[in-house]
C-alpha cells in the first residue's frame, strides 16, 4: 500500500482549512505567527498561478508545442510553502518538478519551458542575480543531492554560516522525491552532509508514486526517518498544508544557517496528474486514492482558511484572472520561441578552446554552406 504511518505529522491547517495545529506542529507555530495576511494571500496567489501555468503547459504539450511536460498539480502546497521558507540568499537545488519554486525564485517560466520544447538542457545560471540562486533542473534521479551537499560544504569552508547574522548566513535546500531516496547518491549525500555538518535541508516531496511504483516499495519505514541512521533528524510535514510546509522549512533552514547541521523534511503530498505527459497513471493507481487526495487539495484548503478570515470574492476572482493572464503570456511567448544556432553546440561544450570543437564546427558550417541559401539545419 502506498500510504504510510503519519502520526508525528506537522500540520497547521486541517483538511477543512481550519487552523488546528497538531502536537508535532507546536515548535513551528511561531514561524506561522510571523506571517501576515499579505503573505497568506501571496501563498494562495502563487499556488493558483502555478497550477494554471501547469495546466497551460499540459495544453501546449498536447498541442505538439512541447515534447514532454512534468505536471506539478497537487504539490503546490509543499512547493510554495518551502520556497518561501528558504531565504532568497540561500541556494536551491531542484529536481525537475519544482515549477512553483522556480517561479518564486524569479525564473521566467518560458526559460523553464525551453527544456521541454527541445531548446535547452537546463538553460539558466544560478549566478544570475535575478534567479536568487536557483540551480538548474536535474533529471538523473537524486544526483543533485550531492551537488547541493558539495555547495553546502563550500559554505561551511567559507565560514558563511553560524555567524549569528541571519541575513548573511547561508544554507542550501535540495529537493527530491520519494523514489530518489533509493538512489545511492542520496544516501551518499546524507553521509557527507552529516560528516561535514553542512548547513543544509533535504526536502523530500513524497508524492507517493515514483512513476508506477508506490513509496512502500522504496521504503518500509516512513521516509522522514531515513536520515536517522546517518545522523540527520527528520520531520514529517503535511505537504498539502502550505503553512506547515512554510513553517517547517523556515525553522529548519534557520537552524541550518545557525550551524545546527543538516536536517531532512518529508512532505506528504500527492501527484494528482501523471508522472509526465507520457505516463498513464490509470494503469497503476486507483480512483479512490486519487479522490482521497483531491479532498486534501492545498489550494481549496487555503481558500477556506482565507474566506474564514474574511477574504472577499473579488480577491479570488482577481487571482483567477491573474493566473489566466500569466498562462496566456507563457503560451504567447512559447509560441514565439525560435530555433537554435547549431554552432552553439560546439561553443558551449567546454569553457576553454578545444580543437575538436573547432574542427567539427568548421566542418558543419562548410557542410551547411554547401547547400546554398535553401538548405541546412538552421
Amino acid at each position, binding site marked *: 500500500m502506498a500510504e504510510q504511518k503519519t502520526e508525528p505529522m506537522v500540520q497547521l491547517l486541517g483538511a477543512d482549512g481550519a487552523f488546528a495545529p497538531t502536537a508535532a506542529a507546536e515548535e513551528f507555530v511561531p514561524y506561522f505567527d510571523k506571517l501576515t495576511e499579505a503573505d497568506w494571500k501571496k501563498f494562495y496567489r502563487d499556488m493558483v498561478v502555478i497550477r494554471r501555468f501547469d495546466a497551460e503547459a499540459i495544453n501546449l504539450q498536447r498541442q505538439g508545442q512541447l515534447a514532454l511536460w512534468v505536471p506539478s498539480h497537487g504539490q503546490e502546497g509543499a512547493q510554495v510553502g518551502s520556497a518561501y521558507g528558504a531565504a532568497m540568499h540561500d541556494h536551491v537545488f531542484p529536481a525537475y518538478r519544482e515549477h512553483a519554486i522556480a517561479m518564486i525564485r524569479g525564473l521566467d517560466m518560458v526559460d523553464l519551458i525551453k527544456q521541454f520544447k527541445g531548446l*535547452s*538542457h*537546463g*538553460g*539558466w*545560471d*544560478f*549566478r544570475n542575480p535575478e534567479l536568487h540562486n536557483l*540551480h*538548474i533542473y*536535474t533529471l*538523473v534521479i537524486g*544526483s543533485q*543531492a*550531492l*551537488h*547541493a*551537499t*558539495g*555547495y*553546502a*560544504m*563550500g*559554505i561551511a*569552508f*567559507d565560514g558563511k554560516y553560524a555567524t549569528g547574522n541571519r541575513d548573511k548566513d547561508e544554507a542550501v535546500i535540495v529537493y527530491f522525491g520519494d523514489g530518489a531516496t533509493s538512489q*545511492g*547518491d542520496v544516501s*551518499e*549525500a546524507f*553521509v*557527507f552532509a552529516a*560528516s561535514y555538518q553542512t548547513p543544509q535541508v533535504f526536502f523530500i516531496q513524497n508524492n507517493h508514486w515514483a512513476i508506477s511504483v508506490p513509496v512502500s516499495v522504496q521504503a518500509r519505514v516512513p521516509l522522514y526517518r531515513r536520515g536517522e541512521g546517518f545522523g540527520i533528524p527528520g520531520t514529517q510535514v503535511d505537504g498539502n498544508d502550505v503553512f506547515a510546509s512554510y513553517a517547517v522549512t523556515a525553522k529548519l533552514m534557520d537552524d541550518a544557517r545557525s550551524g545546527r547541521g543538516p536536517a531532512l523534511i518529508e512532505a506528504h503530498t500527492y501527484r494528482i496528474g501523471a508522472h509526465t505527459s507520457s505516463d498513464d497513471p490509470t494503469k497503476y493507481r486507483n480512483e479512490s486514492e486519487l479522490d482521497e487526495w483531491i479532498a486534501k487539495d492545498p489550494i481549496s484548503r487555503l481558500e477556506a482558511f482565507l474566506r474564514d478570515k474574511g477574504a472577499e470574492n473579488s480577491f479570488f476572482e482577481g487571482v483567477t484572472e491573474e493566473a489566466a493572464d500569466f498562462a496566456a503570456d507563457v503560451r504567447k511567448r512559447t509560441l514565439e520561441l525560435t530555433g537554435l544556432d547549431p554552432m*552553439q553546440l560546439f*561553443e*558551449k*561544450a*567546454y*569553457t*576553454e578552446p*578545444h*580543437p*575538436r570543437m573547432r574542427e567539427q564546427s568548421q566542418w558543419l558550417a562548410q557542410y551547411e554552406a554547401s547547400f546554398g541559401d535553401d538548405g541546412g539545419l538552421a
Partner: protein
Amino acid sequence: MTIENMPMVKAINAGLRAALAKDDRVLLMGEDIGTLGGVFRVTEGLKNEFGSNRVLDTPLAESAIVGTAIGLAMRGYRPVCEIQFDGFIYPAFDQITSQLAKMTSRHEGELPMPVVIRVPYGGHIGAVEHHQESNEAYFAHTAGLRLVSPSNPHDAYWMIQEAIESQDPVLFFEPKSRYWPKGDVNLSANDIPLHASRIARTGTDVTLIGHGAMVSVLLQAAEIAQEEGTSVEVVDLRSLSPVDYGPILDSVRKTGRAVVAQEAPQNVSLGSEIAATITERAFYSLEAPVVRVSGFDVPFPPAKLETIYLPDADRVLDAVDRVLSY
C-alpha cells in the same frame, strides 16, 4: 634554473603543494589522502601543511567525492579529487559523465567546472583485481571532459598544476608503475602546454605512439630497434582528450609507418581512435596499415599473468616488424 631529480610521486606532490599555495580555492579530496598521505603517498604532508579544510579525508564514497566536488566548483572552489585506484572510479561514473562533463553545456557554456580527478591507473604493480586497469577510453568518449596522462616526473609536476588551472574538468591519469623511477624536474620553467603531445625520441623509419607508462616501453623498444638498425620516433601523447594530432601526423608523414601502443584493451580504445585518425588524415603517406599493440580484450588478469597481458618492448618490436614488412 632549478632542476631536481625526483620520482613522479614527489613531483605530483610538489605540483599539488604549489597549486594549494598559489590559490586558496584549490582543495584536495579523497579517501586516505590526508593523514595517511594517500595509498601511494602522493599527497603526503599536505594535510599537515594546509589543514583539513584544504586536504579532505572524505568518507569512502566515490560518487559523493565527485558529486560534492561539482557543488564545491559551483561555489568557486577548484577541487582535486583522488580516486584511489582506476577500478574504483565506476561508482562515480554518473557524476563524471552525466553531471561533471555536461554541467558547462547545461549552463549554456557559461559555468566553469574546474574539477580535477586524479586516477592512478595501469598495471605492472602485481596488484589484486580492479587495481591495474587502463580505463581512459570510457572518459575520452565523453564530451565535456579533458584527459591527460604524464609519462615522467617533469611533465607530472607541471601538468597537474595546469590541470588545476583548467576551467574545464580534467581527468589526470597517473601511471602508477612510473610513480617511483626518478627523473629530472625543471622546477623553474615549463616548455609545453597541457594538451600538447611531445616527441620523446626522434627517428625516421617508424613512429611509435603511446602515453603514460607505455612511453618508457616504447623508448626501450626504440633502443633495441636502433641496435638492429631501425630508426624509431616516439610520440608521448600527454593529452588523451583532445589528442594533439599535429606532431603525430607530422611524424607519420615523415616515417610512413605507425604503431599505437596502450595497456588498455583494444576494442573501441583510444589507440583505435588514433589509428583511424592517422589513416584518415595521412593516408597517402602511409606505407603500411597502422598497427595497434594493446592489452587483450579480456578482464585484466590475475597478477601472475600481467606480463603476458601488458604489451612489452618485444610485443612493440613485433609490431614494428609487421609495419616494416609491407
